[in-house]
Structure formats: structure tokens, C-alpha cells
């Protein structure tokens, strides 16, 4: 299965807490979407992986994700990707996918794979 959780896709800009003053945000609990203070995915035990080949781009996973952590790629090939900075691994996306295109893989294993891939990429550019 292909992993589109990272890669050359659109990322929402984030502003970290240290660049915001309380005056910028503490007037009410309403803030422009997409500006989040910090990542929040530390409790994820399983990570969704979307298979590009069987994904039809129906966008049900995108609509159902309770954290808005599935984004449109706005690119040909696969319609969506999972933002692993904010996905909590609830698996709702897998449950609603009518085409069985989403697999929930062990997070620890996936992290190890990511690290290995990153090290390999660095090695290539060294």
C-alpha cells in the first residue's frame, strides 16, 4: 500500500505559540482555522494509510474525520492525505471508507519506517 501521509502535498501553515501574544488569541475561543498552536498526535496507536490505487476520491474520510486531519491533496493521483501531526488514530476514516482503501497500521512500526526512510534520504544527499 502506498503511504501518502507525507510528501509533496499542500500543508496548512501553522503558527507556534511563541510567536503569538495572548492579545492575539485570548479574546474569545474562536480563531482562524488552520492556525494551531502545537501538534497534537502523541496518543495515536494506529495510523491510517490510504491506498492510492483503490481510493476513488469520494472524500467520505475527509468529511467524517472528527479532527479535520484528512486534507485534500489538490493533486492528481490520490485525492486526500492524512496529516499525522493531528491524526489521533480513531479509525473513523477506515470505518466509513466504502472501498476498503484505508488500513490502520501500528503507529510505532510506522514511525520506525518513517525514521528509516528519513535516514536513507539524508544518506542519499550526504
Amino acid at each position, binding site marked *: 500500500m502506498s503511504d501518502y501521509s507525507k510528501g509533496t502535498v499542500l500543508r496548512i501553515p501553522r503558527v507556534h505559540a511563541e510567536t503569538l501574544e*495572548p492579545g492575539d488569541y*485570548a*479574546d*474569545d*475561543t474562536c480563531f*482562524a482555522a*488552520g492556525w494551531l*498552536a502545537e501538534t497534537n498526535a502523541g496518543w495515536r496507536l494506529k495510523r491510517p494509510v490510504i491506498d492510492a490505487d483503490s481510493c476513488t476520491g469520494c472524500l467520505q474520510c475527509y468529511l467524517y474525520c472528527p479532527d479535520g486531519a484528512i486534507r485534500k491533496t489538490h493533486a492528481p493521483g490520490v485525492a486526500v492525505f492524512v496529516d499525522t501531526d493531528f491524526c489521533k488514530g480513531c479509525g473513523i476514516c477506515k470505518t466509513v471508507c466504502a472501498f476498503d482503501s484505508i488500513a490502520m497500521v501500528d503507529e510505532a512500526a510506522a514511525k520506525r519506517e518513517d525514521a528509516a526512510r528519513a535516514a536513507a534520504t539524508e544518506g542519499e544527499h550526504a
Partner: protein
Amino acid sequence: MSEKKFLSGDEAFAEGVRLARPQVISAYPITPQTVVVERLSEMVERGDLDAEYLHVESEHSALSAAIGAAAAGARAFTATSSQGLLYMAECLTYAAGGRFPIVMMNANRSTCLPWNIYGDQRDSLSLLDHGWIQVYAESAQEALDLALMAFRLGEDDRVRTPVMVCLDGFALTHTYETVSVPSPEEADAFLPPYETSNRFDFEHPVNIGYTAGPAYSRYYKQREHLDMLAAARVVDEVEAEFARTIGRSYPGVVDAWHCDDADEIVVTLGSIAGEVRDVAARLRAEGRKVGVLRIRYLRPLPGPEIVAAVGGARAVAVLEKDVSFGAEGTVFTNVNSALHRAGCAVPTRNFIGGLGGDDITEDQVLQIFDALHEVAAGDAAQVPDVTFLNISDQGGDR
């Protein structure tokens, strides 16, 4: 042109809400508020009020629905009382912390057990801490006017805080008086439509009602507090505008009657103030220097205004329709704190009456003034700190 109608407190309040043009009304009935939501439903059915009227399944849902409506940018109204207010209590902080300027009418009614549906002020006074502005009406006219002013106040950009307007159950909600009802044109001149950025918007997507951890939470809470304190000045502005557009004046966060030169002052809330002033007027005619301070807005706590009004007296009584069990009356606590913070040492005494709809007689009010006279004369020990009216055996060891 305004017109005169003979209305109960509840009916007058409903008229005020009609004129305020809420877009969403979430309603759950509870005595003695029921007439408010019934009248509003009739107005909506007749087409006199263009609002989404939701008959919800509970008070918790009523305020939750109002919060949802406010988060969509709608002017929202609900009403409740007593156990209903307590049932929606967890939603009070959502509305306040979310900075949604919802207006809620609360018919002050006793809380159980024993079961009692009559008026006292325990319900709202037990919930002063949850971030809502609280204002107490004395008359049906004031109730109608407060309905309009509450929206204007809460929606002000410097305030952005929900407002609870309290009417004494039965004593005010169900008694009738002649009320001047403004025309829609006058009301519209005073209260413009609700505009806010604190709402969902397809054009400007937002994250509403999010979590804030320890590093951030304190800033929100501090601002909530400071904005509520600042609301006291906005009250003055709103009332000045009300006087300009509708023609009736109100005296600000407190209503002081002959306090300037008074030796003995009774501080109170709500409709009982009229009776207290009647008794005080007779005493004045006899040469007694007495005064009455009616606190209108209890949140924000008008500390400076209380101190200015009563700080120069020789004895002050707080007459209220509640008790914080195991301590004293809540208004007494608030007044004492304001005085103490100002370094003012005027002796104060608490008189708790009207519980569960109990009548407070003119004779009892007279006795309160007489007790103050004793305290002022140096006989402070004769008058206990806290007295329950209409009970011969005060009991206790205090």
C-alpha cells in the same frame, strides 16, 4: 410611538425580547418563567416576531441550542428558573468562556428540597461565578427595558459576555403594572443587528470552542474577568443611548435612594426595593436619616459604587432572599468584600428573608431599620451578624 399596556413582569419581558429581534429562541418552560416563552411562541406563530423558535427537551438543551445559534452568528435568547438554571449550569461557562452574548431571563425561584416553586433569589445568586453579567429588575417596565439593554450590553465589542436578567418569581413575574412598550422603530434605533466575527463562516473558516492547556488558559480567564469589569462602564453608555432613543433613564449599576446623608442604609436586590423605599420614605418624613441602595448589576460587582453609596453611613443592612448555607447571604459576602477592599469599616448586618416565596412585610423592613439604628447607636452586639426574618427562634451559637 410607544404604547401603554397592562402587563405582568413576564409579559413585559416577552415584549422586550420581541423588540430585540432575536433570531433564535430556545425554550423550555418552568414556573414562573413559562409565560415568557408562551408569549414568545404566540408572537412567532402570529408573525409578530420573526425568529426560529425551538421547543427543546430540557434546560440544558435550551442553553446548548442558544450557544450553537450564537456560534452561527445569531442573536439568541432563552429563559429559565431555579432547578432549570441549575440543570443548565454547566452550559453557563461554555457561553461565558465562548464569549457568546446570549441573553437569558431568569425568574428567581427557590431551589429544592423541600420542593418550592415560589420566589427567592437562591438560584441566580448561587451561580454568580460563572461569567455571566447578572442584573436584577425591580419593575415590569425595567424588565422590558432590560431585555433590550441586555442584548446591546452583551454584544458590545468590549463586553462580549452573556447577560442574565433576573425577575423575582411571582412577586415580579406575575404582578401587573402599566408598561410603556416602545415601537419597533424606537427599538431598532437603539439595538442594531448582531454582528460578530465569533462565529462559523464559510468565507472565513474558524476553529471555535477549542481546548487550551495550562500555558494558555489563564489568559482567557483573565480577559473574561477584565472584560466583565469593564462592562460596568458600558452599562452607563448603553443606558445613555437608551435614554436618547427611547426616552427612559436608568441610574447605572446601582440605584441609590437618599444615601448621601443617610446614617442607616438597607442594601437590597430586585422588586423588594420598592417596599423598602416606601418604609424608608416614611422614616425620612419622621426625621430619620435613612437610605436604600438597590444593586441592579451584581456581576460585575459594583464595588466602587457600593462603597460610594454606603461607605459613609453608620450602619448598613443587606436584605436578600438567599443564604449560602454554612456561611451567610451571598450579597452580604459581596458587599462586605467591597467595603473591606476599600478599607471601609462601616458595620454591616445581614437579613435573610423571602425564602421560598415568604412575604417580607413592611413591619419587618421597619425592624431592619430599627436594628440598624441600634447598631449605629453603638449597640452593635445586640444585633446578630445574620438574622433570618420571620423566625422567632434564631437558634445557632452565633
